[in-house]
């Protein structure tokens, strides 16, 4: 649906986007995950033909963003970071305005406006001026507007920025529903890991204008080396060799580490919640020391981001990654383990 080819964007001497290459498939929810200033919005603006790239191009819905911007615009819907509806007009009037701008045929106009209002749950507020809407309602109106002309691709730039947790969940619900109901390709940017995790089929991690990883949330987390069980033993001086040896028989255990800081044992496993009882049983039999506490962690996209961002930096600096070992807390270290 979207092919981004060697895309560069420079402002003066600052490279905002550096050789972006992404393929987004049909009916996919693709997330661009990255910190503020990573270039997410710039990339969306380029794909929406609002900014011209310095080099490279992209094909959106079969149209080149540089050669056929008008066709690209007809193919896409976009929800900007900040609400862009006219707050002097009512919700309905805003939609009417845009249905005219997108040349939605007259006979379909009213039907389509009611449909999108229904989809975002604003039917009973359609005749109120937008200035009377809450932040969440404005955002939903923007989504309705983006869908009005039945685009094949929709861009959501930070769809839940500035929304409170409950509005955010409502927004996620709407996004999920529209992907299901409207059968569209959706590109969203976010810096909330859980949002990307929850909504996206695939995620492109972007940092400092470069795409540093593209994969499904599950796969990305998988690359960190599965889940981790952290155990604290009554006897601080546990025999790692011993634990290693007894756990070797389990094919779901990937590796065993001792946390140098507190002497806790870190066991990297697949499907930790199911395999934890087995591990406890084995350790109970083999060890003469008791397990005091157990903590189970699933890697979050936060870990994923840290890992890829860090790997990227070290690669660039030409440093051996192990040299950083002494620095950072659990997360950073954890991120490094995944690389080995």
């Amino acid at each position, binding site marked *: *649906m979207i092919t981004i080819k060697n895309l560069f964007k420079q402002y003066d001497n600052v490279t905002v986007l550096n050789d972006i290459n992404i393929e987004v498939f*049909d*009916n996919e929810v693709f997330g661009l995950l990255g910190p503020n200033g990573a270039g997410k919005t710039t990339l969306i*603006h380029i794909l*929406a*033909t*609002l*900014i011209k790239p310095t080099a490279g191009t992209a094909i959106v*819905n*079969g149209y080149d963003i540089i050669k056929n911007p*008008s*066709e690209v*615009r*007809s*193919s*896409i819907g*976009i929800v*900007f970071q*900040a*609400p*862009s*509806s*006219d*707050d*002097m*007009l009512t919700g309905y*009037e805003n939609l*009417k*305005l*845009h249905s*005219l*701008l*997108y*040349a*939605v*045929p007259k006979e379909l106009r009213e039907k389509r406006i009611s449909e999108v209002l229904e989809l975002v749950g604003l039917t009973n507020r359609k005749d109120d*001026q937008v200035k009377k809407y809450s932040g969440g309602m404005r955002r939903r109106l923007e989504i309705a*507007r983006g869908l009005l*002309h*039945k685009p*094949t691709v929709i861009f959501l730039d930070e769809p839940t920025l500035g929304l409170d947790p409950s509005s955010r969940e409502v927004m996620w619900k709407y996004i999920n529903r529209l992907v299901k109901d409207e*059968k569209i390709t959706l590109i969203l940017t976010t810096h909330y890991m859980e949002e990307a995790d929850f909504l996206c089929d695939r995620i492109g991690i972007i940092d400092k204008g470069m795409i540093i990883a593209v994969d499904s949330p599950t796969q990305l987390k998988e690359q960190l080396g599965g889940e981790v069980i952290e155990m604290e033993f009554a006897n601080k001086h546990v025999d790692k060799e011993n634990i290693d040896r007894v756990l070797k028989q389990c094919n779901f255990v990937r590796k065993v580490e001792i946390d140098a800081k507190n002497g806790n044992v870190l066991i990297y496993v697949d499907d930790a919640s199911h395999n934890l009882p087995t591990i406890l049983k084995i350790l109970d039999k083999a060890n003469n020391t008791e397990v005091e506490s157990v903590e189970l962690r699933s890697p979050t996209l936060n870990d994923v981001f840290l890992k890829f961002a860090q790997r990227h930096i070290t690669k660039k600096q030409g440093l051996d990654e192990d040299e950083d070992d002494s620095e950072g807390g659990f997360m950073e270290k954890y991120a490094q383990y995944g690389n080995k």
Partner: protein
Amino acid sequence: MILKEGLWKNMPNMVINKSWIELGLGKLYAIWLREFKVFLREKSRLIASTFTPLLWLFVIGEGFGSTTDFFGTMDFAADSSIGYQQFIFPGIICMSVIFTSVFFGSYIIWDRKFDFLKSVMVAPVSRTTIFLGKAFGGMTTSLIQAAILLVVGFVIGIHYTPLSMVFIIIIILLLSFTLTSLGLTLGSHMESLEGFQLIVSFVVFPLYFLSGALFPLNNLPTWLSILTTLDPVTYGVDALREVMLGITGMNSFALNISVLLLSAAALGTVGILSFRRMKAV
């Protein structure tokens, strides 16, 4: 690309039996309609921009008008029904057009500030259409404002004929297109609202004061005379004075209309070019 069930395949198919002119007109109408609705809803703007010209007309008009000496030096005093207040009435109409049009145009800075402009620019609408839609919006707004004042004209004894009415409307529309274009051009080059005050000081007031709205242009010192000649509003005031009061001004009616047409075309072109170059974000 795989086409999905139930979707309009793509826009070109959807609109296949419509010419681009029809489509363009629909879009133009959409932009105009938005401007018009916003204008009707912003009552404070309407009231404020009606009040200021009235203040000029009645306070300055009556105030200076009461000074007979001043009035006596004017060439047109032959017609006793025309006092200073009547004399400046066409100028006050033009003042209303200047304020309304230039402000209207530069309001595009607000559109940008609130990202509304971005949402229009990302739609498949040409910049020329956006410009013209806005310009027509400005013309409508200016005409409504001027119409209110024209009604006030009855009160101070201005006589209208159907023919003079037609000319008055044409002059107002030409002038407001010119000045809205000017406002839009300036607004399209400005990134922040701070520039707005500059427009007021360096564009709006000079256009008004140099137009001869408040004084006859016959006996001006050369430097002032040059400046008034450069001000397109001068020709609007001059033409309006002729059709409303029968005062033959500096220029012939044909020359006035020609200059207005020329400046409308020139500023319209500059405006469209500025819109095409305007950054979307």
